[in-house]
């Protein structure tokens, strides 16, 4: 029995909704293997998602799961993490979910450095609603809302997360699934806000509109366009490993940020304890004065 079979809700939620060849299954399996390898008790893991093809992922696996509204999963997750700080809180989002309609929650979760792991399945399009342009659709590429090519600049989700203050930021692909699994494992172990972006294939819409071939060709494309950061890092001076050099249409993969910083929930509880003890002291003093 594969690891995946230990967690799948096979009698309840199948057949699943994803198209044949979709990358979401690869992303979800990488997450499940990472969780399993860390030996987490499944009852202490909660997967939260918004709406979209990617956001369907939690429904298919047997953890605590919460399906919320489009773009707001991180806000729901913040509430959960605050009351249940011991849970492993994982949010799965599409690119639209994460940085279009939910972009505000995304940057503020990064800034707050709350101990949540955000996994973004980036297929560079709105899959569920039929292929509209997303903030991660590259310039010049096609989507149903940009039939003459996209003229907007795309968000680089990892740059955005790093700039907004996330303390662990990595990018993998569905082609290098084992590597992606490793990034997710590190993200889950990380204390603070961690982001793993998985560049994924949507053959049904993105692939078709951009003439990229089927799932196999799209996976090959990912193999050929992913440039591990280690390969180019030595060419750069200074600290910033996110500086873009001209990658000729390729993209960087790897761990871009992995640093320690105080985490929101523990700071919050510390502050609450401090304020409570101070208040207690003050009330005692006032009582004595009386």
């Amino acid at each position, binding site marked *: 029995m594969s690891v995946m079979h230990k967690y799948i809700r096979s009698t309840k939620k199948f057949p699943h909704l994803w198209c044949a060849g979709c990358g979401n299954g690869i992303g979800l399996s990488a997450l499940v293997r990472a969780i399993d390898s860390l030996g987490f008790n499944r009852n202490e893991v909660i997967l939260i998602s918004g*709406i979209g093809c990617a956001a369907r992922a939690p429904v298919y696996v047997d953890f605590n799961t919460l399906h*919320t509204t489009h773009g707001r999963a991180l806000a729901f997750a913040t509430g959960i993490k605050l009351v249940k700080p011991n849970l492993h809180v994982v949010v799965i989002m599409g690119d639209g979910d994460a940085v279009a309609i939910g972009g505000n929650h995304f940057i503020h979760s990064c800034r707050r450095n709350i101990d949540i792991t955000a996994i973004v399945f980036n297929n560079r399009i709105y899959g569920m609603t039929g292929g509209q342009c997303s*903030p991660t659709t590259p310039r010049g590429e096609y989507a149903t809302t940009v039939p003459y090519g996209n003229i907007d600049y795309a968000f680089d989700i990892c740059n955005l997360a790093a700039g907004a203050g996330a303390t662990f930021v990595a990018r993998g692909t569905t082609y290098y699934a084992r590597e992606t699994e490793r990034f997710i494992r590190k993200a889950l172990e990380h204390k603070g806000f961690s982001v793993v972006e998985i560049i994924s294939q949507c053959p049904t819409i993105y692939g078709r509109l951009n003439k990229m071939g089927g799932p196999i060709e799209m996976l090959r494309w990912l193999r050929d366009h992913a440039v591990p950061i280690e390969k180019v890092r030595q060419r750069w001076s200074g600290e910033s490993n996110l500086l873009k050099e001209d990658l000729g249409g390729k993209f960087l993969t790897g761990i871009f940020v992995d640093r320690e910083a105080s985490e929101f929930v523990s700071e919050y509880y510390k502050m609450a304890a401090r304020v409570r003890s101070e208040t207690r002291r003050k009330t005692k003093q006032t009582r004595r004065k009386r």
Partner: protein
Amino acid sequence: MARKSVSMTKLALTGNEAVAEAFRQVNPDVAAVYPITPQTELMHKFSEYVYDGKVETELIAVESEHSAMSAAVGAAAGGVRAITATSANGLALMWEVLYIASGLRLPIVMAVVNRALSGPLNIHCDHSDAMGARDSGWIQIYSENSQEAYDNALQAFRIAEHSGVLLPTMITMDGFIISHTTEVLEILDDAAAREFVGEYKPMYTLLNPEQPVTMGPLDLQDYYFEHKRQQVEGMYNAPAVIEQVAQEYAALTGRKYGFIEAYRMEDAETAVVVMGSAAGTTKDVVDTLRERGIKVGMVKLRVFRPFPHEQLAEALSHLKSVAVLDRCISFGAQGGPVYMETRSAMYGKEIPIYSYIYGLGGRDLIPSLVESAYNDLFEGTPDPKMRYLGLRE
């Protein structure tokens, strides 16, 4: 059917395509779009017209419905015709800005393709989305089928933009049931449609150096109340305008619209009140029961805001009893929203009125369910509390 004075084309279109067609003919200045099922195809179709150069509309694909309504408000405040469309959670996300649109008296036209609100997640037809916006100061017009959705879309601009009204207007159609069903309908020719809708001449606009204005500034205890009263005035003026526009439309097309449609009501003893696609099913049931010699009728509400209380009360006043079918629950209330409005319109009349909730989350309303409501009325066994059609309990 009255005579029509212009030539018309018959087309087979879905509800979404029919409204997109109306929007194409109107050629609005700005469309702010964001996808959500089941509305998505409507603006997809319209965006094709934009890209094919069939309209001169500036189309902006924004990043959420909140932004879509905000962009529409910005455009309308700049003095141009602005449209958008949405469903369910998209409409919910627009909430804040719905009130800005109506409070600033901006005659935006929006198509709402009715869908249930999450949670749990459901994408099918339900009127809870539009019903939740019933107090937001928007005019609301419901459609029974694609033809009506098209006709209502054209009329909406005239109503919203009338100087005595100046209120944003939403026209609705049932998600999937109308939006995704292909029906044959009659379309005006482009010139006639454009002439009917006419040019939009805003009273006040931003960006006019001759007459600079400020919109939406702080308005506290001193004037806010008066401004709300003026919005009410717009709603009070709307019925006459809705009627006038419907008359002109009937002269053009032969299709007559009122606030309500009374179906086989003359000698009816009991009747059902409905909105949207359920009216089609109910008419069939009325016909079947009539064949059996049972005197029943139906009243379809077309306009929900402003609520046509006089017309409705008049249509129902000769009955022995009435059932009101709502595709929406008002939790904790005495019945569905249409029921409560109907009861209040019938205040003082000794006619029992009963509330039925049906079709939430897209549950099918089959004829036998409607028939059971009529049976309750005739057998004198209705429940004074809410009843549910097609629910497992």
